[in-house]
């Protein structure tokens, strides 16, 4: 069986800085894979290249047998890859529900004609978009339900902003979900809750998840497999225990052990 996602020799440099240096890895369907690494290891760059925000300088990304190179970000979302951002990026002045409905954009198709004449097809679709958006918000239980849905996104608490961003990504009905430091800035209780959410996304929604995470409790709790990066290269891969005890990984995090 071929992998759902295959990253082959991916390179990206900014001037002299090699953010990605011939990075290769693969993700199978229904897997949860964590990417760890110190700051500046190129983790977010992988996501930005995969979602079409950056153009790679070399290598290829193959998703369900199709190359993602030279595709616009909006096309990549339609193929089934959704993401969240490291520093939460919502549409702050749209309501919570509208934010989630934007996620459904790529799964709907009505145009100017439908909007102006409010055709039955358009109304059905709008109803469906709304229901699915509510459904995506409902994934987080009561956190984003009820009166909150009509509030503008900017009044949400920090943790709820993160949840809304994930709900918006889920609303795009993704096959592969890229989460960029989903627990950053959350308190321990929220972090544990989110850890369960990530596992549930895979188990209940059947989404494959690639997650960048710093909090090792989360990494340990969710990962089927861990990929450790440094300087844009893969330095270790395997189960959490394997990677956590890898000499290169420890060096990357703590610095080289003084020898002699």
């Amino acid at each position, binding site marked *: 069986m071929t992998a759902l996602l295959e990253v082959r020799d991916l390179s990206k440099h900014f001037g002299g800085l090699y953010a990605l240096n011939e990075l290769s890895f693969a993700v199978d369907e229904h897997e949860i894979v964590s990417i760890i690494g110190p700051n500046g290891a190129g983790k977010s760059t992988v996501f930005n290249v995969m979602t079409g925000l950056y153009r790679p300088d070399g290598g290829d990304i193959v998703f369900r047998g199709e190359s993602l190179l030279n595709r616009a970000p*909006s096309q990549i979302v339609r193929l089934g890859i959704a993401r969240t951002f490291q520093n939460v990026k919502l549409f702050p002045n*749209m309501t919570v529900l509208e934010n989630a409905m934007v996620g459904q954009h*790529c799964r709907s198709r009505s145009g100017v004609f439908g909007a*102006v004449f409010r055709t039955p097809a358009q109304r059905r679709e709008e109803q469906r*978009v709304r229901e699915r958006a509510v459904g995506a918000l409902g994934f987080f239980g009561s956190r984003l339900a009820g009166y909150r849905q009509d509030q503008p996104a*900017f009044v949400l608490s920090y943790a709820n902003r993160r949840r809304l961003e994930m709900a918006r990504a889920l609303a*795009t009905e993704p096959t592969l979900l890229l989460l960029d430091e989903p627990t950053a800035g959350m308190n321990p209780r929220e972090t544990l809750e989110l850890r369960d959410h990530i596992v549930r996304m895979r188990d209940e929604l059947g989404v494959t998840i690639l997650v960048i995470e710093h909090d090792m409790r989360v990494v340990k709790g969710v990962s089927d497999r861990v990929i450790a990066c440094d300087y844009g290269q893969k330095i270790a891969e395997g189960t959490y225990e394997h990677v956590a005890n890898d000499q290169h990984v420890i060096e990357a995090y703590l610095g080289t052990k003084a020898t002699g």
Partner: protein
Amino acid sequence: MNRSGLLAGAIPAGAIGGVAIVYLCLVGMVEKFETLDVVGGSVTFNWILLLGTACMAAYVAVRPRVIGGRRVSADRAAALASGAVSGLLTAAVTGAAIGLGNLIGIDAVRSVLRSVSPVLMGILTLHMNAWVGTALLSALLIAAAVAGGLLRTLGSLPRRVLVIGAVAVVVMGLLQRIVPTALDQLNVGRDWLYGRVNLGLTTLGAAVVFAVAALAIWFGLGERLRVVFRPPAASERADGEEAHPQEAGIGSRRMGTVVAWLVVAGLLLVLPYLVGPVVSRILGTVGIFLLLGLGLNIVVGYAGLLDLGYVAFFSVGAYFMAILTGGQRVTFKGFQPPAFGANLSFWVALPIVVAAAALIGALIGAPVLRLRGDYLAIVTLGFGEIARVVFGSTWAEGLFGGAPGMSAITKAPIPGVGFQFQDDPRHFYYLALLFCLLAMYVSWRLQDSRIGRAWNAMREDEQVADAMGISTIRYKLLAFAIGGAVGSIGGALFAVSLGSLTIKSFQILVSITALAVIILGGLGSIPGVVLGALVLIGLPGVLSQFEEYRLLIYGGALIAIMLLRPQGLVPNVRRMRELREDERSQDQWAKDAVAEDLENAPEPAGGELEA
């Protein structure tokens, strides 16, 4: 401490008020409006300007402020004091200007500043000796300022009642050429309301107008109207309609809505015959600019693409309509047909014009897709100028008539109906009304749809919108195309209303006016665009005395709006949020941070790795 803070604000406000008064004198408004009677032959508009400025300066000065992190409203003594200080400053600046003028000599000043005349000086000194007159003027200004300051200490409701009552009196007084005509049409006696000798309101009339406006506000008419006219909110529509039919409130409210809209529709239909042909022509112009505003609102208000070259679509609409409906070039040998032309009916030509404008909109949009904000504005500015140059150029003379322009443009007849859109402005009004309603309907439907959401998301964050599956290229082009199409209808109607075109009508000023209309009204808000067009196009048209000050008023109104009410007169809810976002989100962040600190001591992340 609080008081000194409030007083400190009064000084600049008063000084600005004084400068504003000197400015009003220098541009000639004070002298010119000496003869514009508002109430009973005694209250003329120039005095309303003078005292109103002093009053407003103090009113602004006494606004609640944030001092030391707390919002402080002035108490009565503080309001009195800072009102007086503000008035004193206003009077001092005005008095100094009068003194300076007298010192240099009126004639000497007049050779540079044309408006400084003995008449003006006479007005300012109340036709008395210079010293006594200036002292009296100062006293009046200070009194007005104190009144403005005290106005702040009233509760919100009485304050609104007073202000709106006074504004209603002034507006009715200024409408002295229109309202009496309308009343005459209706055969309603009007001598109790408007004087025959002094054209303004009679004292009784002013009292009645004030009382009516005040009572309307007192009983919350504004709030009620807002509830009645508001379209049902999205959430109500989703589950309110079927889920709670037993609630009598919704049913009766819907009834009220229907009745209210019928009244509005009826008024719109009889309006031209009430106000007469002159005002109907002005309303027709309002309609043309309303179309421009609605179109530009789609581009700027919805999609967030600042377009300063919108006049391009106006001219495309006008010129294409001209050549498609048998317009003739004006040459020194008489009328000649254009190189490419057709003799179509208006109704056949219009769809072609609209399609062409949409196509041109997309073509203009294509090369600037990657530009944002300021850069986009500059490039579109260039497109606007290119359009003007092309339509007015000698080398395209055979097509568009060059500098002399086009004539004999269609009268847009409807077969079998004796409507004369060109000859009777009252008939043209209906044509404009039809298309304005259409454009409003389309705007409204688009805004509340998948497309509107995509535009919104794109305006808020283009990159994220793209990453969430919205093809920003597609939606930018769509905004340019639809906005251009709506604007071109405005141009086509403009051509029909005049029957002839010259390139002088297609200056960049059109773009600026359209932009001013939507900014004044509130970006992204359809009622806002209507109000903006009425205020910026309708009012100066109706008050023909103001015609020469039109641009001054635009400038002043825009500055005041941007400083005092940046969300516009009738703001779009979302825009209002955008402008307040910074304060609020900062608050929220601060609260969150404190809450989190209290809730848990920080734990180092990644602790297990080392272990």
